[in-house]
């Protein structure tokens, strides 16, 4: 996106970074960007890692060596051994199994939160951008208000309101992340609205909602996809943060964040408790970040 269009987008949305957002791609361009993505080794490795985690999460009962909830009071905080590859935790449960099952909670937290944000944010942003006028004013001020509150504070307050649990943490993170998607959806909608093919559709006399869904929506997908991927990474960390504060997935169900929260009290005498969940979070989040960055580059028409 260049020059005037970029500047207008920035001015409208107040998000200067959008200048780096790829221009809307016509539908036929879709196959190209996927190929471009797969040509980058970092993104490919990251995709493989993510796929690995997804497989682990889905097939957890078959992959995990033991029952993640089975406590054994004689095996409390034992270091890694043949019986327990990653060692045991504070009430004698096998950490390897808990890490495997924990993938479910972390992936769920990441994906569901972002799905919630998309489900609320995209329609709202689309509406605001396409309809304009008073609706736009209202939605924009509301979004600004939400954005002005620090994300984590909002998430903490919402989690406290709903009660500590993984589901509520996902809702809290999802709601807290929504404004960013509203902004993005609105901004890209505004840019697309001015493009020729949309003007043409309006000239023919198509109904607004038809234009919005058939013409505008598919074209704002690419930047939303990039943002969503990066948001999943942030959501996984947000879940870990909420667990650190005692909100989020509660024991005995495993989640990497709550495992880290418990492990921090035993860093000196049982460091393995923190190593594996910490490493898993790091790998998963890094992978999502790399894929997101790769997507952004792949969608950039300046790319050869």
């Amino acid at each position, binding site marked *: 996106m260049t020059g005037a269009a970029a500047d207008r987008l920035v001015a409208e949305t107040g998000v200067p970074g959008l200048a780096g957002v790829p221009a809307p791609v016509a539908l036929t361009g879709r196959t190209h960007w996927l190929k471009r993505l797969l040509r980058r080794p970092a993104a490919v490795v990251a995709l493989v890692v993510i796929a690995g985690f997804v497989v682990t999460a889905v097939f957890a009962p078959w992959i995990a060596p033991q029952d993640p909830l089975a406590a054994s*009071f004689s095996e*409390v905080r034992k270091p890694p051994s043949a019986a327990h590859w990653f060692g045991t935790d504070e*009430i004698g449960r096998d950490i390897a199994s808990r890490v495997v099952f924990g993938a479910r909670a972390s992936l769920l937290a990441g994906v569901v939160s972002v799905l919630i944000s998309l489900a609320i944010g995209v329609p709202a942003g689309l509406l605001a951008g396409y309809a304009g006028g008073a609706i736009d004013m209202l939605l924009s001020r509301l979004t600004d208000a939400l954005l002005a509150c620090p994300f984590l504070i909002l998430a903490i307050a919402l989690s406290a309101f709903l*009660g*500590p649990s993984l589901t509520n943490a996902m809702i809290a993170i999802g709601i807290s992340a929504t404004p960013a998607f509203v902004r993005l959806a609105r901004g890209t909608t505004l840019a697309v609205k001015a493009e020729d093919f949309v003007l043409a559709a309006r000239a023919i006399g198509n109904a607004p909602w038809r234009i919005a869904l058939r013409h505008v929506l598919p074209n704002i997908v690419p930047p939303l996809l990039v943002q969503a991927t990066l948001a999943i990474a942030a959501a996984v960390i947000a879940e870990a943060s909420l667990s650190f504060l005692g909100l989020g997935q*509660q024991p*005995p169900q495993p989640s990497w964040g709550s495992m880290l929260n418990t492990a921090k*009290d035993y860093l000196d005498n049982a460091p393995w408790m923190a190593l594996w969940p910490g490493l898993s979070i790091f790998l998963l989040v890094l992978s999502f970040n790399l894929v997101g960055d790769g997507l952004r580059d792949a969608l950039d028409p300046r790319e050869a």
Partner: protein
Amino acid sequence: MSRPLRAALVAAWVALVPALSIAQTLHIGLAEDPDVLDPTLARTFVGRVVFAAMCDKLFDIDAKLAIVPQLATGYQWSADGKALTITLRPGVKFHDGETMDAAAVKYSIERHKTMPGSNRRGELAPVSKVEVVSPLTVRLDLSAPFSPLLAQLADRAGMIVAPKAAQQEGDKFGNHPVCAGPFRFVERVPQDRIVLERFPDYWDKAAIHFDRIVYTPIPDASVRLANLRSGQLDLIERVAPSDMPQIARDPKLRTSKITEIGYQGITINVGKSDLAKQNPLGRDPRVREAFELSLDRQGIVQVAMDGEADPGNQWVAQSSPFYAKNVPMPARNLARAKALLAEAGVPHPSFTLMTATTADAQRIAQVVQAMAKEAGFDVKIQSTEFATSLNLADKGQFDAYVLAWSGRADPDGNIFSFDACKQPLNYAGYCNAEVDDLLKRARTAPDVPTRAKLYSEVAAIVLKDRPIIYLYHRHWLYAYTSRLTGLRSIPDGLIRVQGLHFE
């Protein structure tokens, strides 16, 4: 160097050294930030740790929980037990220079009783009048005999504040408290530090060896310990049990521990709301007995507290003179537990265990869940934030609740508010007329043997009804630099500064 010059230099050095000696500061790490530093309004345990150095009280307790003199030198009960005459220590001054006398004591006690928002009102409820008998003698008239009174006067209710300063500041007194303790208030930055400096006119100044104390609240136990190890702190309280072995291995650090006067238990909703009737645990004492028998207290202590607690089955520790020997601690008995459940007709009862989001509570809940499962219980852990749990407990919206009590020196403080009908802390909703009568009599009985007998009768009933299942009594754990000596371990968990010094 010429002789006279050398001599002059030595003389100068000798003269200057005392002036150059660095002020001795003691850095103490607290597990929380205290609330308001006003003895009348204060509500947290950790605030009492600061008060121990700043606000002396009429009496104090020793390691055996016996009453010892502090601002008072002696006491005398009247024959009918309805009047307590207290003789005060002469020559005691407040931090602002006022003299402590009977008038000041009268003022303080009345302030505790009447100031809006006072948290001491319930503690001093039976006190109907305070009389100044002479400048150093004061008499408290009671509406009925009340044995726990001395223990109350050995805590915040007995802290005497400077009348002029308190009158001037009103409810803002906590921002700049003026008391009669060994150290006086200098400054406080919330969540950062509380600084006290030595009060030169303290009545027991020989026992004080520091010029300043700085309290630093650090909620995270590992960070607190890291600060101790790096030398920024000299003494920390509430060490995490799992850290004790490695501290023991460190030659630069020492540890100290003592069993608390409180307890850790599980409160069961037996009558607080309709939920009690709907759940077999709340409805049927046999199910509760089965639950207790499914638990291995020593195992819970080992896993949840790394051994740093004493298993217990009553509201006082086994070493207490008020422990009811007629109801000893039961051992785990899965067979009997299963038999009881079969008898009650519920082989697989299910209930929700409301648990705070703290690490200890979570560990306890998980261990209890695993142990009870072996007897057939399906325990669901419901993690609840503290503020919400208070609400739910108050409304009786729970089946069982993992709850600890910090403890009071007098056994009445550990049971009356919990088991007497309609008392504020009676979350179980327990109400038994006979128990109420026994508890009230135990409050008015004058001597330990009579009271112990009454409490053993209470135990016989209450431990069969099981509104609360007591699990254990935790250890207060301290760690400090090996340079520090004189730390007295008292079961109330407070850090007393008299006698503390660097070697």
